[in-house]
């Protein structure tokens, strides 16, 4: 036996692992987003495809460019960059010039991931960071909503603007349900909100399909259910209280939940494990915080929509939340810190 004797390997226990892997989580989220993406393409046509492609490309280029030489390509394969590009694309208006979407994807990865040290180290949701950057940079293009034309697979007027140039004369511009409510006191019917025949970002058209994807993720154990549940519950409760004061002026709970990017944000962005608290108690606090901020911005703020800002702000608070919600350790009395 001595001559065949292998040099033994020293690898620290445990030697067993469960099946879940990080790239699989990323793939699951992408799969969960597919129905809503397909619906968006149906409603918005080729424009949506172009915007999504541009933002994904932007993310991939940045990912490739800034990866350390040794792991170049590896960071692309884990799917997180792709997911960031897709999520960003879903939060953009379908008529956005492609170069802006590309820039957004690029900035998402640079500002949202690379400078922090890559996947797992970022403290803000990269996709939302990219969107916040775009919204602050191109406020007009980012709030120009084309009129919806289901089944017509045309390109939107703005999509093809030359790099660094304006989208040209803005054509007929639609409005989002939240904008309509906030500035013109018009309520969009719930059925339209749930199934998507509404203006707005690419990904927020169909609330029902977003929920479907969320259920899929929950079944696959890919998401911390506490966060979406607490966000949606807080928003509903907040709305309910306001409606009890003045049903005319304030939005109804279901309208609040299904309008705007709340479902997209609550299910796919706020639950980004990297940027949300890791402790269960922290997850509740995080969700409640997002819910309150969303309603605060939507109802009392100057903007019709606040999901993005709410999540980013709570991202900023996540280290603090995590720090002060450490679980009680077995055999220790609950600590009061």
């Amino acid at each position: 036996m001595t001559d065949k004797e292998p040099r033994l390997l020293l690898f620290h226990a445990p030697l067993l692992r469960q099946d879940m892997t990080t790239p699989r989580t990323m793939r699951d989220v992408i799969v969960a987003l597919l129905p809503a993406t397909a619906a968006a393409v149906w409603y918005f046509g080729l424009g949506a495809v172009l915007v999504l492609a541009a933002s994904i490309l932007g993310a991939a280029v940045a990912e490739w460019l800034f990866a350390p030489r040794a792991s170049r390509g590896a960071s692309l394969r884990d799917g997180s960059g792709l997911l960031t590009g897709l999520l960003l694309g879903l939060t953009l208006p379908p008529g956005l010039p492609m170069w802006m979407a590309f820039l957004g994807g690029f900035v998402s990865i640079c500002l949202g991931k690379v400078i922090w040290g890559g996947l797992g180290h970022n403290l803000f949701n990269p996709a939302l960071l990219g969107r916040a950057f775009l919204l602050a940079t191109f406020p007009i293009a980012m709030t120009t909503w084309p009129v919806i034309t289901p089944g017509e697979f045309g390109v939107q007027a703005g999509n093809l603007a030359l790099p660094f140039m304006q989208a040209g004369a803005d054509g007929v511009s639609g409005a989002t349900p939240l904008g309509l409510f906030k500035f013109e006191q018009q309520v969009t019917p719930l059925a339209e909100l749930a199934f998507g025949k509404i203006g707005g970002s690419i990904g927020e058209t169909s609330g029902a399909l977003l929920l479907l994807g969320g259920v899929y993720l929950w079944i696959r154990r890919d998401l911390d259910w506490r966060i979406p549940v607490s966000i949606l519950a807080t928003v509903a409760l907040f709305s309910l209280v306001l409606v009890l004061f003045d049903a005319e002026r304030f939005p109804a709970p279901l309208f609040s939940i299904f309008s705007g990017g709340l479902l997209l944000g609550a299910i796919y962005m706020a639950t980004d494990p990297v940027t949300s608290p890791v402790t269960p108690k922290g997850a509740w606090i995080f969700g409640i915080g997002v819910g309150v901020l969303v309603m605060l911005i939507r109802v009392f703020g100057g903007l019709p929509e606040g999901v993005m800002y709410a999540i980013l702000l709570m991202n900023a608070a996540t280290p603090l939340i995590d720090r002060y919600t450490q679980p009680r350790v077995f055999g220790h009395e609950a600590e009061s810190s």
Partner: protein
Amino acid sequence: MNNLLTAPAIMTGIGLFFGTVLAVAQRFLRVDEDPRIEATNELLPGTNCGACGQPGCLPFAEKLVAGEVEPGQCTVSTDEAIESIAEFLQVDAGRAEKLVARLRCAGGSRQAHQIAEYRGFEGCRAAAVVSGGGKGCAWGCLGLADCERACTFDAIHMNANGLPQVDTEKCRACPDCVAACPKDLFELVPLNQHLYVQCNIPLAGEAATQLCATACDACGRCAADAAPGLIRMEGNLPVIDLAAGGPPAPEAVYRCPTNAIVWLDREQFQDQETRKARNA
């Protein structure tokens, strides 16, 4: 133009008022502290860099005055500045001898063999907890660069033989590497101590040399060749006792069969092969 009068009047008034208030406050709120602390702080560079191990210059000054640290521990100050502090505080500057970190092992990947292969998180201590890290010699350098990462001054770099090479110019003799090494191989030695034992194996004879080509086999030749008392054998390893023996001379290393005891010029592990050839 009564402005010409109001302005100076107001200014002087405010100046006098607050001057008085502060003067009174100074008297009643004064914290009794050693005036030398403030004076010492003035002499320090004020960079609050923390390289001395204190949170800032003021705490360092406090410790200086209390005699807990030596002026030389401020790595940022120039020699003159340190002298002036030492003079002011009437203490020893504490920079008599330059110490550098030396590794008590010369068994790199060429000399010492592995019995098993470590897989996992890169780092000596991390490897050491997994059944010793797989190196045949249980006392030797694992070569996974914990010291390189721990060094604040970028003075340690792993060489091609998998051993940490200390840049004696950059080394400030802080104890970072000493603390980082899981096998306790680093020690701070005066730069001008040329005679050095670079092995840590407590085994003797073949048991030791089987593990590592440059292991000390406890033959005792160095002790015999050196000035009486300079080197004694303890736990199968030579121990250099500068106090007991005369000034060390390079003869002690000539007959060492494994190069476990060496005569260092400046850096460790540098051109050992050539030196060996010359000595032979």
